[in-house]
């Protein structure tokens, strides 16, 4: 199974219902977004006037650039296919690609708030929400589109799809040949692959040729410089190890916790 979303630009009117519904559904802070809509043009595309939109969100990539960069310790996790009962056991860090439904998810309780995954994502689909903190991270927690997994698992549609006033957002299983999303793939709907990348994005765009040309010409990103990303995640990982080791000593109390926290912050500051 691979969940995917189609954005039909023939239907999209750029109204932002999707972005605002998402904000309400997932309590996204005003200044951030799990998804976005950018108006493109009017510009000349091959001497023809065009204007369209870039409604973007996490691409839940086949080979996500973000997942391998997470410095959190891994945890052995069992994933169960609700239909077949098939079980898959996998070591996962604080962000992973779900082996059952193909979505990319985050465990906020284990997230270090380092932002390495956000830096690694060429689409800018992740952000650190500074309002969410705990003893693991006082810098905030990563937040991103989950394809509304809790809603979808409960049988509902993603919030953005539900509110889309023209039916321009279509959600479904790419591996199901009879799904509407699969039908769009046959109509040449395609994802925005970063320059030189092969991530396999699972948000696919469909529209008039001139609009698709404008979208890809303006919105194809570069791959992140992973060297930079890794330096930051390594620092976060170091800080976290101190914290974890202090914690694992048991009840050190407030003083111990303060020491651990300050160590983390000094590492942060040294960046």
């Amino acid at each position, binding site marked *: 199974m691979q969940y995917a979303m189609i954005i039909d630009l023939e239907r999209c009117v750029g109204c932002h219902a999707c*972005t605002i519904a998402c904000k*309400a559904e997932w309590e996204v802070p005003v200044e951030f977004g799990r998804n976005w809509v950018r108006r493109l043009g009017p510009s000349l595309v091959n001497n023809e006037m065009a204007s369209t939109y870039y409604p973007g969100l996490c691409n839940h990539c086949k080979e996500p650039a973000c997942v391998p960069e997470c410095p959190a310790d891994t945890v052995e996790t069992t994933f169960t296919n609700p239909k077949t009962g098939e079980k898959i056991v996998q070591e996962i860090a604080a962000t992973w690609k779900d082996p059952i439904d193909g979505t990319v998810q985050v465990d906020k309780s284990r997230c270090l708030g380092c932002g390495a995954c956000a830096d690694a994502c060429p689409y800018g689909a992740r952000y650190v929400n500074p309002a969410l903190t705990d003893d693991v991270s006082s810098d905030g927690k990563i937040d991103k589109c989950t394809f509304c997994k809790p809603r979808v698992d409960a049988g509902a549609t993603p919030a953005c799809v539900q509110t889309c006033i023209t039916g321009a957002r279509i959600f479904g299983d790419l591996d199901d040949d009879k799904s509407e999303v699969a039908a769009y793939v046959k109509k040449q709907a395609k994802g925005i692959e970063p320059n030189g990348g092969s991530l396999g994005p699972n948000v696919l765009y469909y529209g008039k040729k001139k609009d698709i040309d404008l979208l890809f010409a303006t919105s194809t990103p570069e791959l992140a410089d992973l060297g930079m990303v890794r330096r930051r995640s390594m620092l976060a990982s170091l800080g976290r190890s101190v914290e974890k080791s202090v914690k694992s000593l048991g009840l050190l109390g407030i003083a111990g916790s303060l020491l651990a926290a300050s160590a983390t912050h000094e590492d942060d500051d040294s960046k």
Partner: protein
Amino acid sequence: MAFNLTRRRFLQSASLAAVSVPLAKVVSAETGLVESPLEAKGSLKEETVPGGVCEMCFWRCQLVGKRREGRLIKLEGNPKSIDNGSQICARGNAGIQLLYDPDRLKYPLKNVGERGNPVWKRISWDEALTECTTRLKGVIDKYGPQGISVFPHGSTAKYPMHFFERTVGTHNVSEASFFQCRGIRDTAYLATIGKAPGEKVDMPNAKAILLVGSHIGENIHVSHVKAYIQGLQNGAKLIVVDPRYSASAAKADIWVKIKPGTDTAFLLAIMNYLVQNKKFDADFIDNYADGFDEFAAGIKDWTIEKAAAECDVPAAQIKEVAELLAANAPHVSVHPGRHVSWYGNDFQRQRSLACLTALLGAYYVKGGWVPGKGPKVGGISWAKHDHGVEHNLNYDEDEERRYPYSPPGTPTELIRDAALTGKPYPIKGCVIWGQNPIQTIPGQEKMKEVLKQMDFVMCVDVMPTDATMWADILLPEVSYLERYDHIQTGTQWDFSEKNQQYIAARMPLVEPMFERKDQVFITNAIATGLGHKEEIPVQTAEEMVEKNLAVAGLSLKQLREEGGIHIQEGKDPYGVPEDFEVRLYNEDIEDYGFPGVPTYIPVEQPPAGYARLLYGRVPVHTFNRSQNNAWLHQAMPSNPVWINDETAKKMGLKDGDTVGLINSEGFKSRTTTTVKVTPGIRKDAVYMAHGYGSTNPLLSVAVNSGVDDQSLITKIAVDPETGAHGMRNNFVKLIKDDKVLDIPA
């Protein structure tokens, strides 16, 4: 401190250590997801409250609320709706941010400073209402009821507006929805087909759609957009006439990049082409039209070539449009538009659209203008009385109407001129209810002078606005999510589906907070104070809705049980009514001294160095009402001014440069915005979204964000048949780094 801890981090660390949250969490075997207290809960499992009717705009989509511990956390389309369905737009979704906006009005306020520069003092409702009634009574006793002017907007303003109009007896009511928006359209169609057209074109089933200026997509009304997109998906050809490559132009088969102000010439040439080449629906004209010969003779000079020169578009393109319309007749949606108060020559353009629809035989037919047959509910309000025409400013000494096709109320300019001159009588009291006349009506400085000379100004609103700064008493109203009022009725959005009708009353989804009150409470208290207690039609808003529902055999209880919407069998919307008549030539209009056949009246062109200022909508804002909504503001925080790319190059402007604007009368924008450099606009015009640049410091999000286009609309045009404003006859230059830049032709 050695540990470099901020106070906040210290407190966080301390509290977390004390609680000692375990690091390891149990992973759900079902999903692989971790239950984290940091994860937002989502709305799916929260209590669903039906009965909401949106008022982020006037389209009134049906809602349900998602409620957690008494607090609304999300709004959604009511899944039972046959209109908007489960879908609502960005503004609808952002209703939560209006409801809980910390800048909302909370208590009655008295201005102890001066009008326009207020200092607010919180007062009790008793004191506020006593002050309102005493001072309104003072105006009425001294100047008569005609001394009161009313500027209403929105569904709550209807009840107080009726009170002042019908019971108190002033004619001086100016609704922005008529005089700065759609009034011209309504009366032009009334003078042509006997009906106000709404936006009732059957777009889902059209083979061609003609939009003159309408920019659907930037202008969002959910079921309307659904109908439009469905039509395009079904293969309808789209023609968009607009000086700018609008959201609709981007979906069009033909974009007519017309010279602003010349639309009527374009329409006359198309109609003349259809007549000359016998490409019109002769049967329809024979059966339903009146005055065809006078009409044909009246437009015969409008050759395609003549219009091409006037409109600055290729002759071949006008012919292509005419041919495309004829080929797809009668299944053509000639959109009547909505905001049509553009140039002061608008009545004739709206008449032209109505006549073109007739030539195509596109009334009451699939894809044409089809009003649909909705259900009836009651309309209980203040009893009507005849107050004569003696103090009606729209009647002259001979009891003739100055603006014979004025929409209901009195043309704004007549009210303002009387207020400023005291002739024929003084206007010294002002009730502003839900309208923002400072940012809505052209000529801001004139409006301010009008308000300055009043003996008393009261405002009722949900939010502070640029107009509330001019109030003596400012009253806080409950929002559409906290009150009863409007009953929305209609049909299924696509006439190709099973015919159904719906009735949905606005019911509160949450309890009001602070000291906010509704329109019936406030109006009744004022009515009592003014000695009209006996005439009060209902005691509460709930009673009003209950009585109006009873007309349809319904009750609030039943509506609640039915999930907020009552749905019943509908009627076939197609088929021309027997008494339907189209007056292509209208003798009455001629008798009033105006052209009886649709006629093009040229408008003033920009002087050298200036471009015409055009304005329009963005999908995340409604007029100037939603400026302070944090979510909507964040989506589009400013209103860049569109300028042609070749023009920008000559001026040395780059995309994103910061600019101000100055108009040909010397009015300068208070704030700045950025330029959007694009080939998608003509060289003789610039464009910006309306509804930005508030001056009110109480709007902590909106104040000084973007430029207020209305502050640059100072040259006032009045449509001669209707008395409504034209607002696109102002010309601007740009200002960059304090230098005024000419805009080359």
